């Protein structure tokens, strides 16, 4: 038993003295190659990628809005061009796809907030359904307010 310990210690000391400096990445370690298209293998993965992809359409919406403000500041004719552009079938299609993605973002975001926020009332954790549910209610209220402002004119 003692001998084993000594041998073990000896091995440890030896390895400590001969071990190279700490390296982040060792090229000889076995790493399984992951396909570039790993996210197509399961619906959960695809859903994750679609959720992440929604950010592209969020950015698209911002660019569209900035373009709208830019043309709005250039007078009625420039703004009429913008409104005409939005009537283009291609733009309608792009906006329909974008709308699908931003709704997907909103719903996944509300479901996510139920997991991220651990709200406790009276020592008990509020169930996630209530948190995402109240988020969806707030979403509807915000939507109605914005729609009221836009539909008024």
């Amino acid at each position, binding site marked *: 038993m003692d001998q084993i310990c000594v041998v073990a210690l000896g091995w440890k000391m030896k390895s400590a003295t001969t071990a190279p400096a700490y390296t982040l990445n060792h090229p000889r370690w076995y790493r399984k190659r992951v396909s570039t298209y790993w996210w197509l293998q399961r619906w959960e993965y695809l859903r994750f990628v679609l959720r992440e992809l929604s950010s592209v359409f*969020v950015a698209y919406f911002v660019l569209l809005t900035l373009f709208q403000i830019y043309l709005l500041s250039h007078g009625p004719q420039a703004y009429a061009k913008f409104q005409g552009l939005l009537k283009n079938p291609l733009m309608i299609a792009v906006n329909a796809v974008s709308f699908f993605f931003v*709704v997907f973002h909103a719903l996944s975001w509300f479901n996510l907030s139920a997991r991220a926020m651990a709200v406790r009332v009276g020592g008990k954790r509020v169930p996630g359904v209530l948190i995402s549910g109240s988020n969806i209610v707030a979403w509807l209220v915000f939507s109605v307010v914005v729609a009221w402002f836009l539909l008024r004119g």
Partner: protein
Amino acid sequence: MEAKPSQLRLEPLLWILFSAGGVVAAFLIPVQLFLQGLVFPLGWAKGPDYATTAAFVAHPLVRLYLFVLCSIPLFHAAHRIRYTLYDGLQIKHLNEVIAVCCYGGAVFGTLVAGYLLWSFH
């Protein structure tokens, strides 16, 4: 392994902007896009005309709203696009270039939004 001090200070800020932008985008973008991109062009409802829209955007509170709507979601998008490229396509060697392009684009978009809304008349 030593973490770079600059990364230590910037990462939490980027995550805060990511989640704040996610909230703004979730609450406000669907209704805006639905009305502006589908309902008004398809004629399902009559949208505000040029004069109404221009007068509306000229209001300081509306401009503040539009600035928030156009700036923070860009940082949200930049953050997500960065990590989607990182995880999805496994192009880790381009990490720095991607980060600079994504956040740089968001900063640029914010500056453009600020300029457009500040100088709007």
